[in-house]
């Protein structure tokens, strides 16, 4: 048996050893991707708010990123919603 095949064989415990390592890798990567996606969502929300504000619209205190990042107040009314203030 070649050295690589022997290494992958893990003395007959391949399914248990590589299964463990595979599941751990998947969990760790999923966590990393979730945190990165969250960061992107928040930064996109902030950039959008900045653009709206620069255009002269009133930007309300919309609900947090999980719920409604797009919930910016209706342009022109100038109303600032108190709903969802944290």
């Amino acid at each position, binding site marked *: 048996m070649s050295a690589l095949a022997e*290494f992958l064989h*893990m*003395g*007959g*415990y391949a399914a*248990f*050893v590589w*299964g*463990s*390592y595979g*599941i*751990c890798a998947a*969990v*760790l990567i999923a*966590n*990393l991707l*979730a*945190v*990165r996606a*969250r*960061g992107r969502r*928040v*930064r996109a*929300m*902030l*950039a959008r*708010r*900045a653009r709206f504000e620069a255009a002269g619209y009133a930007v309300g*205190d919309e609900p*947090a*990123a*999980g719920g409604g990042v797009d919930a910016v107040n209706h342009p022109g009314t100038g109303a600032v919603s108190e709903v*969802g203030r*944290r």
Partner: protein
Amino acid sequence: MTIARLFHQFGSPPHFYRLAGRMLPWFATACVACLAAGLYGGLVLAPPDYQQGESYRIIFIHVPSAWMSLFVYMVMAACGAIVLIWRMKLAEVVAQASAPIGASFTFMALVTGSLWGKPMWGTYWVWDARLTSELILLFLYLGVIGLQSAYEDRRTGARAAAVLALVGVVNIPIIHYSVEWWNTLHQGPTVTKLDKPSIHLSMLVPLLLMAVAFKLYYATLLLMRARSDLLERERNAAWVRDEVAAR
């Protein structure tokens, strides 16, 4: 600089945000380096175990995951105490960021343990003190995550979750000492003994490297998540507007 001032400054969101941003690349790089060295040492360099053959190599992820499941819980509970006593925002953010990572490590410890138990004990699961108390830890994490998002006002949720996290601390020594207090199927401590650890250096070094890598992974994700949570919570503050404008 007095300690109180240092504490105050570290807890101030803009200061923490910038400090975390500077530390992030170092933590991430060190994590990858330790992970690579630990995996190479554990999977390639370390010899097979004289009793368990190659299957023992699961130890290099199982034990660090289990250690982290307890460590992250203690961090989360300590933050919970700070949340309840001082209402510190940064502690809420850290507790909220820690819960899913801690739950992940607990899940990893349970799954790898199960996959190690099958070839060695002949079963994936037994209701043994160590296994059961670790499973309860997973449920505690899930309860904390649930409470954190159960309230419309997230600061109320953070306080409710903090109470549960603090009550759950009672489980931590139970997990740690379970293999000594009860006659369990799970083996006793190998590394954290007062006398010499009963593990050879060629296995101990990669194990410790993996433990450090997992700690650094936690630190990296914690900083990333805390940074974006701070931006979100403080979105109307002047410093966040400056940060957004500067980009």
